[in-house]
């Protein structure tokens, strides 16, 4: 026996006992139970405290629409808040705890909120705590957050793996009740590729919860027979524990499969959940319907439940929430709950039906034309008070009340693409309408066909129609015999009697009074109503409450419900864990890591690495005894300038440009001229945006008449390539030119310093003369090294030294760096990282990303004269527009501190030597700064108004953010070797 409330029958496995705990107490359930059904079986009705008022709450539903029974599962790193007990499969050792309570669930000191409910009505956030302003962040908000919280998180890393996957199908069937099963069966038999997605852990939907027969079988047996056939079909994929959460463009759906949520720990190698992206040609929504409550005073006590849920607990899980149950309904369907419970031997103390002509129930007292006006029982329902048709009051003992206000089709997914549901008078509910997502049709209860027979027929019909659109002939299967009782319902939303609170939205503690208050304060549109009262927010998104709220508002405004409208349904249909959305993109795998060919070697040298986009680059190479990064960087700079240094520059973008018109093409891409660049020469190139702003620079090397190699900055490698393809395909479609990115194909090293040539001569094969005469500054060529390895050599210099860049196929990159270091031993070669690279380029006055910052023109950069006026190239027309080249505009200059001890802060603003310091008197700003070990002081590059004519002027370098100010002299940006003698040596 697994609890006092366990009945006979059901779809649980009584031979398998499952031990679990709730709030530290151990209970027993069975395989097939949910946490909610097992707790009810053990006579636990109280499962949580409400969000705002800390009212005792129990389970309301038996499905994913549950607003109340939110629990915290597991412990340690796997602790998971806000899980619905109604969809939590029971597993051995499951630990569950109630949430949002004080010391214990039964005695919650925060329930004091309930006494002050008058202060906590709709809009209380906006009305209260307005003053003093500073108190909000420090005092009010933390208190409110604590009082009105939901569950708590572990603050530990999730130890489980989440995955993402992609699926394709002809027909996606969402839901596996009678409509979904028939749709899948029809399409499966026709040979179509079918995916059947079911959020529950068993298929069958309401067939498992009802006593209706299908043909001569029980509904669940029929569902199992269909499943047996579907399982045998290779073209049908059945996905249980899978919720389709959103309908997106062009037949794409997303679904979350809870692969391991029903296990204590995922099985070896399996993910916890998978987020699927399903590409469907057609889809059938067979998501069923959700029952809605009737609000009355104190209708939130543990034990007040949906009638369909009570029936599901009895029939599927063999559980009654209490030994005495009453029913409150406005429709015939509610009576089924009474009948099913009576058949199971439960004492049904009464059926209260608001309709005066309600049908007679066998075995229970009927109160036709009556209403439930109140209830008693602090921690669990004890009785309800009924206003009889004749006006008398009567108390009816019951520990559970099964409430039915009718059923709402689950239209959510039909609205994910602007579809507007339409009102159906017979059901008093919205059904799918307007424009459904392309390729989607709804069938069964989701489409308003609430009987089993209607669902079976509609499911089969929807599949035949969908497949016929795809040119697949499907046969309508023989439809089994099933119940087809017409809907009989009198719309009834809330009981007007009573001064207390009648709960519309139990998850957000929104009452009828709150909606009246919102109306009174003119928050009358449904969207305003939602935001003002919080109706329909949070994990259940108002699945059981939105209609009630709408109905109250409609009544107050004197409009019909369809005129009042519905809020827009957006994905996801049910809550999705962040882990599933992140998938594998967590921690180190958040983005790809790109390593250069010398990475392993650099790591062996103890290099510090820095992230540059996805790349990891060596930042500096500390040596034994160096305790500060500046020591390493200064050494690298000095040794490179003194002898020779090597830097991995593989990350620079490389684009191979080939074709008869390659030169003509580059002439259009670069602002400066390229058509006449001789073979065997490299040229610096500046790229502009079409608006005339400089956006990237690099070099283009002409290896042959029809072959160039273009380099870009590391950051813009992707963008430059994209723009070049745009120019090639869209602007000049008939130039004979081909592009390919070769960034990853070549390992490239800068070899810089007075001994660079001597070092290279040791590895360049002897038939290639790289003497200064044969291979002067800006030469390039295809050579071989180390006895035949093909390589490219470029005599270019970023450091200002005699320098080369040598490239070999990537797979030789590791070998080459080792070879270069070995060959350089006699020159005391140093490897240098991005810091030393930066210092040397600042010393040389070369612009980099800091200067090409998206706001600067060629003129600002001192390269105005480079922009060709003779040719048509991207950006040159608008680079001439007014305001781009005015005298007095920003020019790039160098800065040297007056006191050599002062550091120049990058980002600081330049102010005249005297006068006000303000935005108005701003003279420019520092873009790059570094300590120059060559000059023995800090230096900077800056943009200064009219800077070209202000050499020698003393300025204030102002950093109000950090409260510093120094004085600096305006100098040429070329701090080292301004004549360029070294690089030509």
């Amino acid at each position: 026996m697994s609890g006092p409330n366990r009945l006979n029958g059901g779809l649980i496995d009584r031979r398998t006992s499952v031990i679990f705990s709730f709030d530290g107490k151990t209970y027993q359930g069975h395989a097939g139970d949910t946490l909610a059904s097992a707790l009810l079986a053990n006579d636990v009705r109280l499962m949580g405290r409400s969000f705002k008022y800390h009212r005792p709450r129990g389970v309301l539903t038996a499905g994913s629409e549950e607003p109340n029974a939110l629990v915290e599962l597991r412990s340690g790193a796997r602790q998971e808040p806000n899980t619905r007990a109604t969809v939590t499969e029971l597993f051995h050792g499951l630990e569950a705890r109630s949430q949002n309570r004080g010391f214990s669930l039964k005695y919650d000191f925060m329930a004091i909120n309930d006494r002050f409910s008058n202060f906590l009505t709709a809009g209380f956030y906006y009305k209260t705590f307005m003053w003093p302003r500073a108190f909000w962040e420090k005092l009010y908000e933390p208190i409110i957050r604590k009082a009105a919280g939901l569950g708590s998180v572990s603050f530990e890393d999730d130890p489980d793996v989440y995955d993402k996957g992609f699926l394709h199908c002809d027909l996606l069937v969402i839901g596996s009740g009678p409509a979904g099963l028939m749709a899948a069966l029809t399409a499966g038999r026709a040979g179509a590729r079918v995916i059947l997605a079911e959020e529950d852990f068993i298929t069958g939907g309401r067939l498992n919860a009802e006593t209706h027969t299908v043909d001569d079988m029980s509904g669940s047996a029929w569902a199992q027979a269909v499943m047996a056939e579907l399982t045998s079909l290779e073209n049908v994929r059945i996905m249980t524990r899978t919720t389709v959460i959103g309908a997106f463009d062009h037949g794409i759906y997303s679904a979350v499969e809870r692969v391991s949520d029903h296990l204590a720990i995922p099985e070896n190698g399996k993910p916890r959940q998978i987020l699927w992206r399903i590409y469907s040609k057609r889809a059938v929504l067979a998501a069923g319907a959700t029952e809605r409550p009737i609000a009355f005073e104190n209708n939130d006590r543990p034990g007040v439940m949906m009638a369909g849920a009570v029936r599901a607990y009895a029939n599927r899980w063999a559980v009654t929430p209490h030994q005495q149950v009453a029913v409150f309904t406005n429709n015939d369907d509610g009576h089924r709950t009474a009948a099913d419970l009576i058949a199971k031997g439960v004492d049904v103390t009464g059926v209260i039906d608001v309709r005066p002509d309600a049908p007679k129930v066998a075995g229970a007292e009927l109160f036709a034309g009556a209403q439930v006006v109140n209830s008693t029982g602090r921690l669990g329902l004890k009785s309800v008070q009924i206003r009889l048709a004749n006006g008398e009051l009567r108390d009816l003992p019951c520990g559970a009340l099964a409430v039915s206000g009718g059923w709402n089709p689950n239209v959510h997914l039909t609205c994910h693409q602007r579809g507007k549901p339409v009102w159906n008078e017979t059901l008093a509910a919205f059904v799918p309408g307007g424009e459904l997502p392309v390729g989607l049709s709804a069938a069964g209860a989701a489409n308003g066909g609430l009987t089993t027979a209607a669902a079976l027929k509609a499911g089969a019909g929807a599949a035949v129609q969908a497949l016929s659109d795809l040119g697949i002939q499907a046969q309508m299967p023989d439809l089994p015999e099933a119940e087809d009782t017409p809907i009989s319902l009198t719309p009834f939303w809330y009981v007007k009697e009573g001064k207390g609170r009648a709960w519309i939205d139990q998850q957000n503690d929104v009452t009828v009074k709150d909606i009246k208050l919102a109306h009174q304060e003119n928050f009358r549109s449904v969207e305003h109503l939602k935001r003002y009262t919080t109706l329909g927010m949070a994990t259940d998104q108002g699945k059981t409450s939105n209609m009630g709220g709408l109905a109250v508002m409609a009544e107050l405004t004197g409009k019909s419900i369809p005129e009042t409208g519905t809020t827009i349904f957006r994905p996801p249909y049910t809550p999705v864990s962040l882990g599933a959305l992140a998938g594998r993109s967590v921690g180190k795998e958040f983005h790809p890591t790109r390593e250069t060919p010398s990475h392993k070697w650099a790591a062996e040298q103890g290099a510090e690495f820095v992230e540059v986009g996805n790349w990891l680059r060596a930042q500096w190479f500390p040596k034994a005894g160096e305790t500060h990064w500046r020591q390493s960087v200064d050494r690298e700079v000095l040794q490179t300038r003194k002898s020779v240094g090597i830097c991995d520059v593989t990350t620079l973008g490389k684009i191979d440009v080939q074709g008869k018109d390659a030169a003509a093409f580059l002439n259009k891409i670069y602002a400066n001229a390229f058509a006449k660049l001789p073979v065997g020469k490299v040229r610096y190139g500046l790229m502009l945006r079409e608006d005339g702003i400089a956006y990237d620079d690099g070099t283009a090397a002409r290896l042959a008449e029809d072959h160039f190699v273009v380099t870009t900055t590391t950051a813009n490698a992707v963008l430059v390539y994209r723009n070049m393809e745009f120019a090639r395909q869209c602007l000049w479609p008939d130039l004979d030119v081909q592009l390919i990115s070769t960034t990853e194909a070549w390992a490239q090293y800068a070899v810089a310093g007075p001994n660079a040539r001597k070092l290279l001569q040791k590895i360049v094969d002897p038939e290639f003369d790289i003497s200064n005469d044969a291979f002067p500054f800006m030469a390039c060529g295809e050579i071989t090294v180390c006895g035949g390895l093909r390589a490219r050599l470029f005599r270019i210099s970023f450091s200002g030294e005699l320098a080369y860049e040598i490239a070999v196929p990537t797979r030789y990159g590791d070998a080459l760096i080792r070879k270069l270091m070995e060959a350089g031993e006699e020159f005391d070669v140093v490897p240098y990282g991005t810091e030393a690279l930066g210092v040397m380029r600042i010393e040389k006055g070369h612009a980099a990303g800091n200067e090409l910052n998206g706001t600067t023109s060629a003129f600002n950069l001192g390269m105005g004269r480079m922009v060709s006026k003779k040719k048509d190239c991207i950006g040159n027309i608008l680079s001439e527009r007014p305001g781009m080249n005015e005298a007095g505009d920003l020019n790039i200059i160098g800065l040297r501190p007056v006191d050599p001890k002062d550091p120049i802060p990058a980002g600081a603003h330049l102010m005249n030597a005297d006068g006000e310091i303000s935005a108005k008197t701003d003279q420019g700003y520092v873009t790059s700064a570094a300590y120059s070990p060559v000059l023995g002081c800090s230096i900077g590059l800056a943009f200064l108004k009219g800077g070209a004519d202000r050499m020698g002027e003393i300025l204030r370098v102002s950093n109000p953010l950090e409260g510093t100010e120094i004085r600096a002299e305006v100098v040429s940006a070329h701090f080292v070797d301004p004549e360029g003698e070294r690089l030509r040596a």
Partner: protein
Amino acid sequence: MIINHPLLGPRDAQEFTYLGDASLISRPDAQDDNAAEKFHDYLYLRDNPAGLHRELWFHESGDRSWLVVTRNTVTHEITDVQLARDVARKEGRSK
């Protein structure tokens, strides 16, 4: 969204990078007398229709084709996809 690539068939929009209005193909002639004005209009004046829109998509994670995609900005329905190069040629950019 799915973009029906003229060469590769249906591909997920995630493989593409979006640029914008296909009028960017119609780059003005730099030799025109009022070239600056025309470049200004080319760069800064765009229609923003609620409905059919011809736009440029780059198959960055694919074959690197630029495509002109005609998409309804309200429904995301895609009614036509062409290679941008073919469009450019039709618009007289073969020179």
